[in-house]
């Protein structure tokens, strides 16, 4: 891990047509932390994640990952150098089994060429078996054993989110972007998810950027919280400090109150 900060976002500006989504946004994510971004709907949280992922090209600004400028890198390259993402909506592969879903996450760790794959000999087969072992380990970690061979689309939402998390973990990322991992979950499922997030952060040492609406979760999990409103950063700091800030409360007036 190079340096103190896994990710630095400098002076980010993003707009669609005339609508400004993100404005002059700068922040730094310290290595090994859980860094939460909160804010009301439409504040531009997901847009920031999309810029980090490379889906949106910011009009201005730089994104630096592990000391390397990645502003112009395509999304899949960013994934290859260690940025994983769990989407807000459930975007797992519904027709695939849970195993295959997570195996897909191993894509960048495998490199057999099409001809070897077609013949399924030598390196291709070994690679498949080797990576399968790693996937089983992730399944173990997330307690998904029961569902290994079920088509993922047929599972309950909470499990599906866990599969999505497993798929992201399979990339062995250094930075994990979680976009509302708790939405639509029951209390028990949320508790489970929190434990997984903490384990991922602490045991695996993965830096996490968390976008979440459930303030109690944010309070409990985060090392640092950044508050956004209308595309701008309005506060940043340790959770307890930030939630005392009056501006934050104002931003949430009429919204789910902290």
């Amino acid at each position: 891990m190079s340096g103190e900060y896994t990710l630095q976002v400098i002076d980010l500006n993003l707009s669609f047509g005339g609508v400004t989504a993100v404005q002059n946004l700068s922040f730094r994510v310290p290595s090994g932390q859980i860094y939460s971004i909160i804010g009301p709907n439409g504040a531009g949280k997901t847009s920031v994640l999309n810029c980090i992922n490379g889906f949106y090209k910011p009009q201005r600004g730089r994104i630096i990952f592990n000391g390397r400028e990645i502003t112009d890198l395509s999304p899949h390259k960013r994934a290859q150098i260690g940025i994983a993402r769990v989407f807000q909506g459930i975007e797992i592969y519904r027709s695939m089994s849970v195993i295959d879903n997570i195996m897909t996450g191993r894509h960048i760790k495998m490199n057999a060429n099409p001809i070897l794959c077609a013949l399924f000999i030598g390196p291709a087969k070994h690679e498949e078996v080797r990576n399968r072992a790693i996937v089983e380990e992730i399944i173990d970690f997330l307690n998904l054993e029961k569902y290994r061979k079920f088509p993922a689309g047929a599972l309950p939402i909470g499990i599906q989110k866990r599969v999505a998390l497993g798929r992201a973990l399979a990339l062995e990322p250094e930075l994990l972007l979680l976009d509302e991992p708790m939405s639509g979950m029951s209390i028990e499922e949320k508790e489970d998810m929190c434990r997984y997030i903490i384990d991922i952060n602490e045991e695996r040492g993965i830096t996490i950027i968390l976008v979440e609406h459930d303030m109690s979760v944010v309070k409990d999990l985060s090392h640092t919280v950044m508050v956004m409103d209308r595309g701008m950063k309005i506060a940043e700091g340790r959770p307890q400090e930030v939630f005392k800030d009056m501006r934050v409360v104002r931003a949430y007036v009429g919204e789910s109150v902290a």
Partner: protein
Amino acid sequence: MATLDLITLTQILIAGALTGTLYAPLTLGFNIIYRSSRVVNFAQGELLLIGAYVAYTFTVLVASNLIIGLMLAIIATGLVGPLIERAVLRPLLARPVFAAILVTIGLGISLQGTSQLIWGVTPLAAPVSFPAEPIRIGPIILPSVSVYSALVSTILVSVLLLFYQKTKLGLSMRAAGEDQALAMALGVNVRTVIATAWTISAVSSTVAGVLLSGVFGFVSYYLLFVALRVYVAAIVGGLDSVGGAILGSILIGVGESIGGLLEPSVGPGFRDAFPLLLALIVMMIRPYGLLGTERIERI
């Protein structure tokens, strides 16, 4: 090749554009079904064929008056369209789009057989015969069928636009064309919308059948060959735009004319190939067609 003067060029472009209006009603029919239900109708050519045959039946066999015969034909196909939809596509509402495609393929095969079963394989008289004398504007020669078809297409599109703008059903159709799920949530009866789309599609296919058979002077199997251009025209114009269907058709017509003009220097068949090259270029520049709207994907 004769030297290319301004008059020839004008002539070629205008005649090409008018030929394009021959395809326009059919493209429109294809487009409307796609807009309302996201179904790619591979049976559009067969609708054209059936439409032309029905028009033949009513104008030649049933009614002695041409106008009455055509009216009856339009009413008949207007009823058949939604019937087809009700029988084979309705059960697939909210099922995979691919299934609907295969159903339209099967439907096309069946309709082809049906047309043969009813009308046989011998060419039948075209419902409307256009005068063989061309219409001349100064030195410019325009085939009469093209001129009439331009007229008919204009009327058809005007009526359709009026329907879209002024009626509640038209409004629902526009809404459904934009976003089906949203329209449903807003209380639009999507079933009615789709049935109406099939009615309009069948009627405009009939109109196209009448016009196209007028080019040759008879109705038979070959009309299916003509129908292929429709997919290209629909794409060039943009699948989700009524104006695009018209524009696409006209562009294909003009493209054919230009291709025909260049044929001696490029090679035989360039008349057919050039519009396709044109379409490919358009798609590279505007992947959603000239008048189509790009949908920004929400991530």
